[in-house]
């Protein structure tokens, strides 16, 4: 374990810690909205007919609207949490060309888009649930497919963290090498989710193992593990160089 945190953290370290801790409201709001209020765990089956989808949205319209609002708010904190992770990449790349920082920044911003737009499409489906069932289903499909299948903005984010971690030559790297290798494996494990576009049922469908459970568990485990390491890293950096915390 790292040394105990200094009693008075420098302002730079404090603000980084605050941003890092926003992972907690992100997870709380998302799980409260998605699971407790929305009951969307597991998600709707892609094999459901248009009428079944429309009936589901109609029967739970207000509950689902609140679910969408809460998940939408949760993404604010995903943004700030990702910023705390990117700040560590920027610290590693301090003297370099910062390409990983910029890539992670774009991927992180993309994550917010691929998170919020599906929520908006579900909201569209819920806004006039009385319209033709096929249209409700269309809006729902517009949401599910990018929500789980948009690998492009998601995958580069952990990949940048892993590469930056492996490049880190500092005495006390924030990201240990085992974590970087784990992150590469976790990123690869996300790839089968791209197959959701092919299947309405089976292991690769969006409500099954490779479309939902594996990416879902993978993402939240990674975010939680990364939280622990980034928090530990910020405290260690503040302890090692109390004046440098402000630079990061």
């Amino acid at each position, binding site marked *: 374990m790292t040394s105990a945190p200094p009693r008075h953290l420098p302002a730079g370290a404090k603000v980084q810690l605050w941003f890092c801790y926003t992972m907690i409201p992100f997870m709380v709001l998302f799980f409260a909205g998605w699971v407790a209020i929305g009951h969307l765990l597991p998600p709707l089956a892609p094999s459901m007919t248009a009428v079944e989808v429309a009936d589901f949205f109609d029967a739970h319209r207000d509950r689902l609207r609140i679910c969408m609002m809460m998940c939408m708010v949760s993404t604010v904190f995903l943004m700030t949490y990702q910023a705390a992770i990117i700040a560590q990449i920027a610290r590693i790349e301090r003297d370099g060309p910062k390409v990983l920082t910029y890539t992670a920044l774009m991927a992180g911003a993309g994550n917010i888009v691929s998170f919020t737009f599906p929520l908006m499409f579900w909201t569209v489906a819920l806004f006039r649930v009385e319209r033709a069932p096929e249209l409700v289903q269309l809006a729902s499909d517009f949401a599910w497919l990018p929500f789980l299948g948009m690998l492009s903005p998601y995958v580069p984010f952990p990949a940048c963290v892993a590469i930056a971690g492996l490049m880190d030559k500092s005495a006390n790297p924030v990201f240990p090498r085992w974590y970087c290798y784990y992150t590469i*494996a976790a990123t690869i*494990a996300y790839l089968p989710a791209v197959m959701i576009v092919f299947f309405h049922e089976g*292991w690769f469908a969006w409500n099954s193992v490779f479309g939902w459970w594996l990416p879902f568990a993978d993402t939240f485990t990674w975010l939680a593990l990364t939280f622990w390491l980034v928090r530990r890293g910020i405290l260690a950096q503040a302890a090692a160089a109390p004046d440098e915390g402000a630079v990061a």
Partner: protein
Amino acid sequence: MKGGHGVPGKSLPGETGLWVFIFADLGLFFLFFVLAAQDMAVHREDFQTGQAGLLTWVGAVNTVVLLTGSWAVAMGTRVANTAERASQYLKAAALSGVLFLGLKVFEYAHSLGAGHVLTENRFYMWYYALTAYHALHVLVGVGLLWLVARRYATAQRPGHLLVEAAGCYWHLVDLLWIEIFLILYLL
């Protein structure tokens, strides 16, 4: 990537980390195999007719190709006593990967030409998913071996961690192929 490997106490974490990757990746393939086995038990007929339509000889040749590649990797990383020899062995191993991928494309062309697609049934779902996912691993392995071979060929010797990583990874790719070959082509 160069440097850093000679730092005392640094080599063990690197190796341990690599094994985290290997076991995590093996774990994912294990999940693939368990679910495929379950589908095989439920959709027995699809698997039998599907298997009969595959070019088993191409799969067998590819097994030999990858095993030869693994031998070349072992020679290049452990036996070769000059950098030039090591580079040649590793380039040969990388070429075995390219040959494997070429045969895989030929096999896909054959299956697709016969009208078999990913969504046809559970057998073809696993056939395309497992082999494509494995082929992606081969592609990465070819790049990794070529990188190490080039470092040997130039004056810049690769760090032993990189050589070991490339070697272990290639053996992993080989091991996974043998399992895939068994499940899809033979069982």
